[in-house]
């Protein structure tokens, strides 16, 4: 999609043109729904976040100043919606119960490569909510620990330890999942 076309679509959205809103939706909906699925526990929640996010985007698109940051801006809105849902449900579960201290970590990379995105998303969804957020924000989005701590209202040390634990859980789940699939 050319930058000029994006600009035209955004301009149309600012003017509440139906065609422009549909174009923007068609252009970004698949990507954003994938993002919503990663940040939520199930499809139903993801769709709620997805809908709310798009409504917010259409309402606030006139605030967008730079066209080149459109995708980043949209992502931020969806992430924010997901965080709101996370806070509303008080799913601040940062449990350590799943952690096994000794995992054959070198094997997990190979398994991860073989698994599809849907499978990995499901594994991430199975993480405790807090960990799910940290994995998404740190590993996928590249947020710094300090900002994640502020977003989730926890200390920076906690996010680091949670991330460490989340990795372990994910690796453990990858092996379990692979074993099930192999059988």
């Amino acid at each position: 999609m050319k930058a000029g076309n994006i600009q035209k679509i955004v301009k149309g959205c600012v003017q509440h043109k139906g065609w422009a809103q549909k174009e923007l939706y068609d252009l970004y909906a698949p990507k954003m729904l994938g993002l919503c699925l990663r940040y939520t526990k199930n499809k139903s929640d993801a769709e709620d976040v997805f809908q709310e996010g798009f409504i917010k985007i259409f309402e606030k698109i006139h605030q967008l100043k730079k066209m080149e940051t459109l995708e980043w801006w949209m992502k931020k809105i969806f992430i924010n919606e997901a965080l709101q849902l996370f806070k509303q449900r008080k799913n601040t579960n940062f449990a350590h119960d799943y952690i096994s201290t000794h995992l054959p970590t070198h094997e997990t990379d190979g398994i991860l490569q073989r698994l599809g995105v849907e499978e990995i998303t499901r594994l991430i969804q199975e993480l405790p909510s807090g960990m799910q957020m940290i994995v998404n924000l740190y590993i996928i989005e590249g947020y710094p620990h300090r900002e994640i701590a502020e977003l989730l209202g926890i200390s920076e040390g906690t996010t680091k330890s949670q991330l460490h634990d989340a990795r372990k859980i994910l690796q453990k789940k990858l092996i379990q999942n692979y074993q099930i699939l192999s059988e």
Partner: protein
Amino acid sequence: MMGKTKHNEEFDKLLRSKYQLEEVKPAAHLWKNIQKQIQGGPVPVKSWYLSKVVLIGSSAAAVLGLILVLFYFVYLKPQRLSSTVVANSKPAVSSPHASELKQNKTSLTVSRQNTHSKAYTSSTTKKGGTIALKKGSHPIFAKTLLFITPMKEMKLVFPLAMAANATWYKTVPTVIKPVSVIPLAGQKHVKKATRQKQPKTKKYYAAKSKQQKAPKKQKLRKSVLHPWSIEAFIMPEFSSRFVTPNPNYTKGIFTPSYFNSREHYTFNYSYGLLVDYRFLHSLSVETGLSYYVYGVDFSTQGSYLEKTGNHSGFVYTSSGKSDLNIDKVDSLDSQSMLSSSSRFDYLSVPIILKYYPLKSLYINAGPTIDYFIGQSNSWDKHDHEGDFNVESGNIEGINRFNISFIFGVGYEKKIWKKLSFSINPAVRIHLRNLNPNSTVKVYPFNAGFRVYLRYEL
């Protein structure tokens, strides 16, 4: 430990790569739900000022309109010399027809007929010499020509005025002689003057110009009988700003260019009621009370930030206070998308002097004292959750008093008995920093046009 960290990085990288092209096709009902919501949902509030394009377009149209009005009244419809002038004109000369004038090979003559069936003729000899007022010259140029009459060297004086006059009458006026007076519509053609081959002396033209000036004075004296008038005006203004760093607050955080490049031209306005006292036929002073709104729109798209380790801050200008959410100092350019808009309200007392070099044209200039009465500010806070929350509040430390200087030129036209209309392109320069607490010194500069109705008391 190192190996563990490296493995974590690889794991993260691998996981991230899986999501680079992550796409999930949404169900059809999702768009229908969204569509339903947005069609019945709230419409985003539009900014309080009009769009820049509309404003620039309208002001350009207004300026063009003004030029056309001036052109029409000043050039196409020059004022007829009064009957007194005609009566006093000496010597009486015959009124040659255009065809007759054209036949005179020693002079170049152009004849022009306007809607009032009044002809203006202009003739010049090829020999150079002094310049004199001539019926047919436009009053503006006539005045200019009279002024320069004593000067024998034309090349040295007002070449522009000469050229403009010459362009209009398709001739270069070197020596101009009185040639004719054309009767008003319905009157008989009366022979008033005759064309003379020899150019008149300087003394003659000086005497003639004195005669022609006399009735004008009478007319002006008449206007002094009604020196008081009231004016209701409105003045749309475009604003730009002169910004310089405030030494009290400059700590290497922001550069002036940062503010200049990112503050948008905005639409301001003022309106009010003034009392005008014309104490001389060509001078008047006006004062009164007006309401002046100064607004500014500001958006951050990047900044120079001192690398002191601060990773958050705020922009504090007369535009409003905007929090900056800075993830990485180096990536601020692409990360920050904040905007704010402010509106400051003032009660203004202008003291404007108006000088009328011509009956309908004036130059005005003078100070206005602005008293700060209120403000409304809103800004987008781009919070840590990536949301744009609109916040509002007051800016502390705005100066209670400001002094601005207004100057411009205007055209005034009597539209009905004692009622006059005027359009007055003008600029307003703030002479005092709006907000001494700001990191920069801000001196707004407005350009606009004042439109008013004046009623003679």
